[in-house]
């Protein structure tokens, strides 16, 4: 068995080493239903309260502004589906690089009477203020812009975008809900939703070493949701809570945010090494790197590249056979090609380059050796594949 090299942290980070036993202990220790009024239930409930308080401290929010969910997708779903509750429909702005859990709601929202505008990023992958201003309308009620894009790694200029929206809101008089999907921001950039003038933000545990199936939703104020239930999580996300998952998420968040600066520094070093090496490989083009402008901000944990004309999907399979795990944002299927490469194509990447795109994402335990070995094998496999493809 070859040693594996895991470079797909943006899809899912390996669980922190201490968490499996921590989760097992929590599962055994807190078996009551947190909604029960007996001591077993109360004890379980206290764990959730404590976790919420800790997360609130880490994220700069009030505890009651945090709702535990099953992950980023559910957090996004809760916010966007709450729009269906609105009596008067209005105008919505969604960035063209949103996760499907937001973007794919467009058709249903349109069908129910909402007017939707899509805001495209520029050729570097960033949503620009100049493009946002003309889209704002007197009846705009909702804007969703991802904090860090999972494919391009572009860190959106949220502060300036928020300020434009709030200025417009002040003049116009109608409040606008600002949502951000911050799944790739947590533990990767300094990000405290409580310190930004936003209304909601989504997070996921397994992107930062927590367990899958746990997430968080920041809500500045409670919203009216679609799914009724037993009143858990302030009735925003009813359903018996995943106590062990929540506790593990909190622990992972604490560790991740405590080490944030070191982790970013480590990732930035690896990214620079990776890009230097990738640029030397014939047939690889690094996408979305700051070529000329140092003010452009990209996640240190994500590198997007293209190996076109080799389909990214094919390279991912070949590397997988070598126990190297990366991902692709696109697929070489003839059907739904546009849908598969939507984010990259919206960011100005050609369809051909999108089909050849790969994403390499690192994390706290990625080593320099991993990067060097990956690049060597990539070089070897790519030249084999290219031999056949004209």
């Amino acid at each position, binding site marked *: 068995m070859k040693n594996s090299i895991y470079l797909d942290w943006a899809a899912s980070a390996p669980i922190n080493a201490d968490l499996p036993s921590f989760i097992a202990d929590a599962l055994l220790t807190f078996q009551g239903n947190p909604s029960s009024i007996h001591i077993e239930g109360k004890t379980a409930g206290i764990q959730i309260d404590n976790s919420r308080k800790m997360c609130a401290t880490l994220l700069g929010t009030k505890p009651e502004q945090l709702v535990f969910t099953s992950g980023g997708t559910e957090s996004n779903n809760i916010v966007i589906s709450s729009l269906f509750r609105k009596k008067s429909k209005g105008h919505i702005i969604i960035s063209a690089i949103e996760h499907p859990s937001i973007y794919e709601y467009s058709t249903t929202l349109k069908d129910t009477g909402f007017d939707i505008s899509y805001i495209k990023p520029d050729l570097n992958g960033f949503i620009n203020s100049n493009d946002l201003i003309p889209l704002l309308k007197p009846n705009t009620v909702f804007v969703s812009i991802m904090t860090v894009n999972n494919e391009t790694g572009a860190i959106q200029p949220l502060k300036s975008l928020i300020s434009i929206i709030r200025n417009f809101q002040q003049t116009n008089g109608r409040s606008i809900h600002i949502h951000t999907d911050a799944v790739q921001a947590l533990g990767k950039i300094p990000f405290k939703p409580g310190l930004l003038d936003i209304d909601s933000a989504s997070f996921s545990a397994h992107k930062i070493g927590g367990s899958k199936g746990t997430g968080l939703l920041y809500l500045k104020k409670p919203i009216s949701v679609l799914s009724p239930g037993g009143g858990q999580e302030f009735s925003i996300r009813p359903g018996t809570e995943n106590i062990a998952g929540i506790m593990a998420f909190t622990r992972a968040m604490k560790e991740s945010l405590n080490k944030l600066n070191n982790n970013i520094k480590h990732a930035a070093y690896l990214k620079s090494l990776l890009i230097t090496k990738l640029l030397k490989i014939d047939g690889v083009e690094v996408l979305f790197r700051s070529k000329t402008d140092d003010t452009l901000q990209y996640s240190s944990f994500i590198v997007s590249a293209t190996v076109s004309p080799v389909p990214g999907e094919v390279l991912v399979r070949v590397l997988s056979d070598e126990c190297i795990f990366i991902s692709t944002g696109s697929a070489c299927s003839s059907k739904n*090609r546009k849908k598969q490469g939507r984010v990259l194509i919206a960011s100005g990447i050609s369809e051909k380059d999108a089909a050849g795109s790969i994403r390499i994402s690192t994390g706290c335990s990625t080593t320099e050796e991993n990067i060097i070995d990956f690049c060597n094998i990539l070089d070897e496999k790519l030249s084999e594949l290219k031999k056949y493809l004209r």
Partner: protein
Amino acid sequence: MDNLYLIKIGEISLKKGNRSRFEKQLRFNIKKKLRKPSRITIQKGRFFLETDESDIKNIQYALSTTPGLVGFTRAVKVKKNIEDIKTAALDFANELAISYPAGTFKIESRRADKGFKYTSYEISSLIGEYLLDSIPSLKVDVHNPDWTISIEIRDLAYIYGAQEKGTGGLPVGSAGKGMLLLSGGIDSPVAGYLMAKRGLRMDAVYFHAYPYTSDDALLKVKSLAEKIAPYLSGLSLFVVSFTDFQLLLKQKAREEEITLLMRAGMVKIAELISKNRGNICLVTGESLSQVASQTVESIRYTGSETDLTIFRPLIGMDKEDIIKIAKSIDTFETSILPFEDCCTIFSPKHPLVTPDREKLKKSFILLEGENLLKEAAEKAERIYFKP
């Protein structure tokens, strides 16, 4: 044996001198699907299946997926005694009344044994009255009933419930053996199903081009093979590694010719495997003009690269009609899973639509791919799917 079924045959009944061959094949195909000992007897053109198999759903699935029978119905046989007939009829009525709580019914009686003391009309009246007394919510409707119970007086009294639909056609194995070119799409499983209904026994071949196509595409094809296997009375799927030949095409063929030369390669491999399997024809899911490789000229070319006859049962069908059949045999939802069986790099932007046959035949020779094709055929992995 506990369970009795009356099986109605359709087209077989039109056969004359060789009818027994078809009947024997149908008997064999049905028994092959049942897990427990079974006996099939033929009386005056009717098949009676008696089986120890107790799982009614399994029996019904086995019968509904066996080409050669048009319908079947669960039956019981009792002594020629009106009280026993009443009891058996009530059991059926109670079952049927669950589906149609305020339903209408009819009793149909036939008296083959003229010595029985009641006439057909009298049997129907007596049993009908008994059922009306026993289940007051029922009503009689002799013209348009929700369900019918049939009673036949022969050596014993046979009572049948509702009739279920069969596949129709002829029993698999009664019309020789062929090779189905199975892709992950909607059409080829339907083509296999339709040819099975004409009595053709089949192997199937799938061309896998890993890493250019994913293993998910292969899993999808295996799942399709599993779904059509009952209709085909079982099938062997040959998985051919097609990557090397596709790469040869990419290197040596003119881009616009790749699709048709690839089709020709597939046909040739299918023919090579067929030689060892006794297959004398190929079956494809081609439908005229559906895609570039299915124009008259394209089909004429690919057909010319093999000595075997190619059956294309979908050739004149609209896609909507093909989809209807795919849904009826439960392959549609699997076929539309997004795992493609051909990577876009092997799909030319502008494939030939009206190819020159002779020119393409020369192009194929210039590829010098015979050894690759032979090797691919020899190394094909065989996976058997039971009926």
